[in-house]
């Protein structure tokens, strides 16, 4: 609870991949040149990902792959990596999450978390004694270098009123992702039925890394009424589910902590 003297938060914002990228830094390098170059490196990483994976760019590897103009082996190895993540998500969600839908390849649901984790690397490795929280359009990776410092406080947006928050999650090292319809109607579809899920307003997942958090949030949201139960069985996750009727539910069990208890 104590407020450290170096708690000043320095923020940066940029727009990449059609999303606002927000960075909050505290600690030794928060405001210096090293932070500036790590931020530039992070943004460059996101732009690289966009060039390879964007479904909006006709010349991206993924677009060409989708058209059949390329084979996976002709793409950078990251493409196979992301497709493997998508396949894992499809299996684990019972098909509700699928990077291939109606004959189209759209790995966006996997790419985002994966890309932000990559973009966070320069922050993690080049900025010693510095805490960061890197958010891409509401999904974020958090890191606190010194455990004596306060955790980042992540507000969970109220999907029915985006000017307000329904919960706060304190996070030192981990990721937070939210899936819902609040800002982009019909963005998530249950791949099994092709329909927009209606039972839930949003699903937020807190996990060790953003790939996991992002996939699980999207899958749980797509699963609709089955989502909270599915999420509860996933190890090492916690989450907040806001139902369409406004009811709020906390989901998840930190099973790794429980095992450690013995």
């Amino acid at each position, binding site marked *: 609870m104590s407020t450290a003297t170096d708690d000043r938060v320095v923020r940066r914002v940029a727009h990449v991949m059609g999303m606002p990228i927000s960075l909050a830094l505290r600690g030794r390098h928060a405001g210096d040149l090293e932070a500036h170059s790590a931020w530039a490196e992070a943004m460059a990483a996101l732009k690289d990902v966009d060039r390879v994976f964007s479904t909006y760019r006709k010349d991206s590897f993924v677009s060409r792959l989708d058209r059949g103009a390329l084979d996976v082996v002709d793409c950078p190895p990251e493409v196979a990596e992301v497709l493997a993540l998508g396949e894992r998500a499809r299996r684990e969600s019972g098909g509700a999450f699928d990077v291939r839908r109606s004959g189209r390849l759209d790995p966006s649901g996997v790419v985002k978390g994966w890309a932000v984790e990559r973009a966070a690397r320069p922050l993690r490795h080049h900025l010693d004694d510095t805490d960061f929280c890197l958010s891409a359009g509401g999904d974020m990776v958090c890191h606190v270098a010194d455990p004596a410092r306060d955790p980042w406080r992540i*507000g*969970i947006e109220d999907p029915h009123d*985006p000017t307000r928050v329904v919960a706060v999650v304190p996070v030192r090292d981990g990721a937070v992702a939210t899936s819902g319809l609040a800002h982009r109607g019909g963005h998530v579809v249950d791949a099994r039925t092709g329909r927009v899920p209606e039972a839930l307003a*949003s699903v937020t997942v807190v996990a060790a890394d953003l790939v996991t958090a992002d996939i699980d949030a999207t899958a749980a949201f797509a699963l609709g009424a089955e989502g909270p139960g599915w999420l509860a069985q996933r190890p090492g996750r916690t989450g907040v589910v806001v*139902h369409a009727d406004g009811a709020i*539910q906390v989901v998840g069990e930190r099973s790794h902590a*429980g095992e450690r208890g013995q």
Partner: protein
Amino acid sequence: MVNPTMNRLSRNLTWLLSTLTVVVLLFGYKTSTGGGSLSADSSAVSSAGTAPISGSSSGSSGSSGLSSDPSSSPSASSGSSSGSSSSAASTVTGDVAQTRWGPVQVAVSVASGKVTDVQVVEYPSDNPRDAEINSYALPILIKETISAQSANIDMVSGATVTSGGYIQSLQSALDQAGV
């Protein structure tokens, strides 16, 4: 060495179970105030079975304690940690439990037999010693949705924010406030 540890563990377990009752009440309350079609009873039970707090030291035994708890009625708040709630408005603050993951304390306000507020006074993630365990922690529900300013938050997690929608977003306000 062994005995004190076991004693402490079992005390913590007992405390946690009583706390979990309070947490169930919170969920039941949240669910029932959420309005709409979900019945308060079934929702409370289902969220209880998956309550992340049970992931603390009590693990699965915490969960089973919860699901066997007929807690869906908010007026059952006598199960709270201090057990001294009355029909008049009152706030019951549980003792601080020194769990393996740090101190946990919950305060519950009760008025006319209904839980009107629940505050997590202390939670384990504030204890730096076990930061690795608490690298990602329990979401803390807020009784009534509140503005970002009052919540004292650093970032906002929400459904995909596009650059177009960013201008009106909470995150935008935070970013501007911080520069």
